[in-house]
């Protein structure tokens, strides 16, 4: 009894943690370049809706994932134009992106409400390709950020764009690159929800995962490798809730649905002490050039 339960929990946490991990990694790249994107929620929703629509239209879930990544990049670049080229306030622009995502995903997904799509095929171990690629993506991102010249430049832009500029980097260009990658990852994270977990589209289906991802970046202390256990813990919170519900535990489903949000808050409280030291120094600030 215990063992199948534990296995079910583990499998289920890996499945639900995957979309969160992609979104967290996407937010992390942007924040490393000094951009806070409160709109991940919107990016994920657009990814989920676009991915579902593309998969439903073409019958190929992999094309859905690609479409979701492209859509995520596209909307993140729109956000990027406002915060990078026009130097608008990042928090306000991020929330605007969230609203855009709410609305645009509802419009995209509308014709597909109630439809069921062929999900991503389950490969070895019953996990789909995106699950298998999640941890390698985190490792790759770690390598890119901490072991390449490109990553050094990107992090320098996040710490001090003026100094990065003085040493020959192009802060605005690097920030656009970071947001493109971040948008693709956020979109793929959303697509994993609709194409591997629910296999259906439902308005607002990400239910705040984008905000949990933002908190996870803080939890991971801006390190892609630490995002992996973080996403797994939150996947487990969700999995536990689903498993308990499936087993008819006598707890209100509403109370259990609260767990991930409250857990996020709790973790932020415990992480509150020293997070400042790890955050990129220029986080949230525009680059005004060196005139």
């Amino acid at each position, binding site marked *: 009894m215990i063992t199948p339960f534990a296995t079910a929990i583990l499998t289920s946490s890996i499945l639900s943690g995957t979309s969160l991990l992609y979104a967290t990694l996407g937010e992390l790249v942007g924040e490393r370049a000094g951009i806070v994107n409160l709109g991940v929620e919107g990016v994920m929703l657009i990814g989920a809706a676009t991915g579902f629509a593309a998969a439903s239209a073409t019958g190929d879930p992999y094309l859905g994932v690609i479409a979701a990544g492209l859509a995520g990049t596209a909307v993140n670049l729109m956000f990027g134009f406002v915060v990078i080229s026009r130097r608008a*306030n990042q928090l306000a622009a991020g929330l605007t992106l969230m609203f855009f995502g709410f*609305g645009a995903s509802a419009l995209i997904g509308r014709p597909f409400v109630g439809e069921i799509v062929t999900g991503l095929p389950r490969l070895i171990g019953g996990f789909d390709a995106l699950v298998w690629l999640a941890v390698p993506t985190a490792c790759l991102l770690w390598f890119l950020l901490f072991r390449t010249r490109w990553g050094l430049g990107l992090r320098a832009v996040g710490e001090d764009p003026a100094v990065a500029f003085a040493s020959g980097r192009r802060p605005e260009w690097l920030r656009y690159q970071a947001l493109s990658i971040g948008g693709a990852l956020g979109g793929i994270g959303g697509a994993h929800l609709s194409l591997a977990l629910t296999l259906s589209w439902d308005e607002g289906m990400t239910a705040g995962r984008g905000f949990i991802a933002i908190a996870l970046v803080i939890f991971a202390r801006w390190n892609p490798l630490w995002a992996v256990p973080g996403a797994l813990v939150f996947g487990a919170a969700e999995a536990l809730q689903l498993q308990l519900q499936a087993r008819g535990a006598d707890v209100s489903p509403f109370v259990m649905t609260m767990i991930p949000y409250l857990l996020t808050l709790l973790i932020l409280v415990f992480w509150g002490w020293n997070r400042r030291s790890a955050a990129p120094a220029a986080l949230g600030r525009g680059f005004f050039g060196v005139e």
Partner: protein
Amino acid sequence: MQHDIALTLRRPVFRIMKLQVPRAAVIALVSLAIFALLLLAAGKDPLQAYRDTAVYVFGNGYGFSELLVRMTPLLLTAVAVSLPARMGLINVGGEGQFYMGAWLATGGALMFPDLPAWLLLPLMTVLGFAGGALWALLPGVLRAVRLVNETISTLLLNYVAPLIVSYFIFGPWRSSESASYPESPAFSDAARLPSFAGTRVHVGLIFGLAGLALYSFVLGHTRWGLRMRAIGGNAEASLRLGIPVPGTIVAVMSIAGGVAGIAGMAEVSAIQGRLVAGLSPGYGFMGFLVAWLAGGSAIGIVIMAFLFAVISSIGDILQITQGVPYSVVNVLMAVILFIVLGQRRAGS
């Protein structure tokens, strides 16, 4: 980053009141055009929707009164954002605070159905305030002791509050009359805020206008307002001057939450007459946009709340006549904000 948005909100960004009316009109037209193109791409008829909205809203008195109904919660949720913004705090939790105000006020209405209206309504208002205030207290405390940024904590709590409401209307407060649709029992007549002359415009509008007047009086003419502006300007210096910064943060966040809570109370008491799921079509979030565009000015809030009431009617019309989900109208709001954000080069 805190400092930035404080400046942004204090300065009348969208100076609609001063010489910017033509620009505001251009922004509105461009946004409507972009939104229309998106709807066209989705195979809908945007011009028909705009026409329908104009006829519905401005065609007769009742349609216009419905705009005031929609404006009412926005005025309050916008104050809930503007007040903390004055000291550099970003309260994005209006949605959750709205729900908690409605929840606690419902508790009062269900517990004392036999009280006379003159006693019950003030009690529900106080409870509504308390519900919202409680929901903002935690983010306020966490921010005051510098543990968690209030932006992320208020956002997260937005997702918890509707679940509490759902827990109650599916559980302890579930009405026995409605088997299919979960909702609380109907309030007694004494628990209903009165409306004006055959419309749904209710006393909540007076709460909203009074709230705005109080907001601009406190900020402009009292030492609390001065203190808040001082903290927004330089928290470190204020602390050294002997201003109790952490205490003020907690108090202001709670009051702001309470104001949003009153909006929730007014909505259940005057409009619904019972607690239902999906009480708010995003009033808390819209309040944030209204406050942001108004740049903290009380008159700006009234104008922007009116504009958002019109936009929200477009959403209704689209849903009713063309089967487009209501939330699609968020795109229109986002486009307006993106244009405004992209127009000015902040910090210059």
